[in-house]
């Protein structure tokens, strides 16, 4: 579904990605784990078209997406919930969800998806007329995921959805990610919380200073001694 081949990217003179390759097949949850500064967010920014790779290929559903503008990439069904949530703080919860559905032309489907988001995150329905900036961190993360769901993604990119959240809320969000996946959404999950991510992922990649150093199924990586030492604190 998504194919990243030998992609390099830099910010100014600093090389952030040094020829990474990864793929995501339809129906999978794939996770990309690694330390701070390994290049995880840059990888997602390149996929979403917000940062242009210096070299390498990026194809989604067989189409070359490197030259595409971000809003065209969203229209293909490749949607990102960014790091740090980035909800629109002075817009209401409902308006934030509406922005998620910005590219859609099927009002009936959008209506159904509001219900779907509200049933997965009932707190969002309770707060739907509140400005998003007044929500707690966990609620904002739920909103960020819900907002991306409103775009009806075929492939959902999630950047650090557990960042700074209480364990109970992290568990809830990972549960929702699995539910979405079971309902047919493919997921590429970037996480520092490697244990949680590898538990729900079909496959995973380990990114270290701009290079993919390991890959395997979630189970394999969880059992790998190097992964355990570096990312699982064992």
């Amino acid at each position, binding site marked *: 579904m998504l194919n990243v081949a030998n992609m390099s990217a830099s910010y100014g003179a600093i090389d952030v990605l040094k020829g990474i390759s990864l793929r995501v097949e339809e129906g999978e949850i794939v996770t990309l784990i690694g330390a701070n500064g390994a290049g995880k967010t840059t990888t997602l920014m390149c996929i*979403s*078209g*917000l940062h242009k790779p210096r070299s390498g290929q990026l194809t989604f559903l067989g189409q070359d997406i490197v030259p595409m*503008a*971000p*809003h065209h990439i*969203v*229209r293909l069904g490749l*949607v*990102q919930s*960014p790091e*740090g949530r*980035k*909800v*629109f*703080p*002075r*817009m209401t919860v409902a*308006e934030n969800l*509406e*922005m*998620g559905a*910005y*590219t859609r032309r099927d009002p009936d489907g959008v209506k159904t998806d509001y219900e779907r988001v509200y049933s997965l995150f009932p707190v969002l329905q309770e707060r739907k007329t509140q400005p998003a*900036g007044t929500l707690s961190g966990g609620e904002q993360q739920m909103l960020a995921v819900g*907002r991306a769901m409103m*775009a009806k993604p075929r492939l959902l990119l999630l950047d650090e959805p557990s960042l700074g959240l209480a364990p109970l809320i992290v568990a809830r969000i990972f549960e929702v990610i699995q539910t979405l996946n079971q309902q047919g959404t493919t997921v590429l999950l970037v996480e520092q919380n490697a244990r949680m991510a590898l538990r729900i992922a079909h496959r995973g990649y380990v990114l270290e200073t701009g290079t993919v150093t390991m890959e395997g199924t979630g189970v394999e990586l969880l059992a790998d001694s190097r992964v355990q030492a570096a990312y699982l604190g064992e």
Partner: protein
Amino acid sequence: MLDTILQQLIIGLTNGMVFALVALGYTMVYGILEFINFAHGDVFMLTSFLALTLVGLFDLQGASGASLAGGLCLVILTCALFGAGLNYVIDRLVYKPLRKAPKLAPLVSAIGVSFILQNLGLFWGGMPLKVFGGGNQAAAPKAFPDILPAHNLLGAGSGLTLMPKDVLVIGASLVVMAALYGVVRFSKLGKAMRATAQDPAAARLMGIDVDQVIGATFLVGGGLAGFAAVIYSLYINTIHYQMGYQNGLYAFTAAVVGGIGNIPGAVLGGLLLGLVRAYSDQFIGAQWQPAVLFGILILILIFRPSGLLGSTAREKV
């Protein structure tokens, strides 16, 4: 005394409406690009030359009844479209190529565009149009004819004067502002504008074509300036190729005092500026206008540095 106070209220509100309309253009563009479009006041100025030209072309001086009303509507519509188009073209030709450049580059370019537009205004003012008064004096102020009926709506004996043009300026401005509020609050474009202003990267990730939204913002801001140009000209009855500079600076100040980037703030700042100016002219003296006006505005900013309706705290990340 009461009549004086009320009279200055009318004067302050009418002037304030013009400032508010121009301030909206500054604030909307700033809200999205964090960029001061210094040419904005000159879009306003140049459109007033179009307004005067059209008044001559349609022969509105001395017209009355339906032909006056129809002609006036046509002038307003044409000028709003002209202002919108001019502002849009400036963005596409000058600012858009500089979107990723260091912030001083578009700023200096905007000042450059401002001078170019003034030069165009000077040229326009030198055209031999009858409505310009024969007009070989390019730099001379042009009289804008008082085409609206000049009688006191409150009756000839009243100590207070309320002219049809006062009602037109205040009424039409309110209608335009209400329409703008509706668009920004409820339309899909308006929501995309707010989303882009609050977080452009997130807006892109939602599939919003940010470039298109920026273009639309310049269109709307230019349209408001074009509309403001007509009502200013009808009200003040003089236009001049340098009037965009002072009025633009006043309107920009209004936007900052109201809270730059904040739409209701621009309206509030504009009205406040108009009222303070009117009362200071009446009670302190017009020769002290700039000192009093800006003294008060500086005081406001000392106590509310982000402006009256600007957010006082940094947003939580």
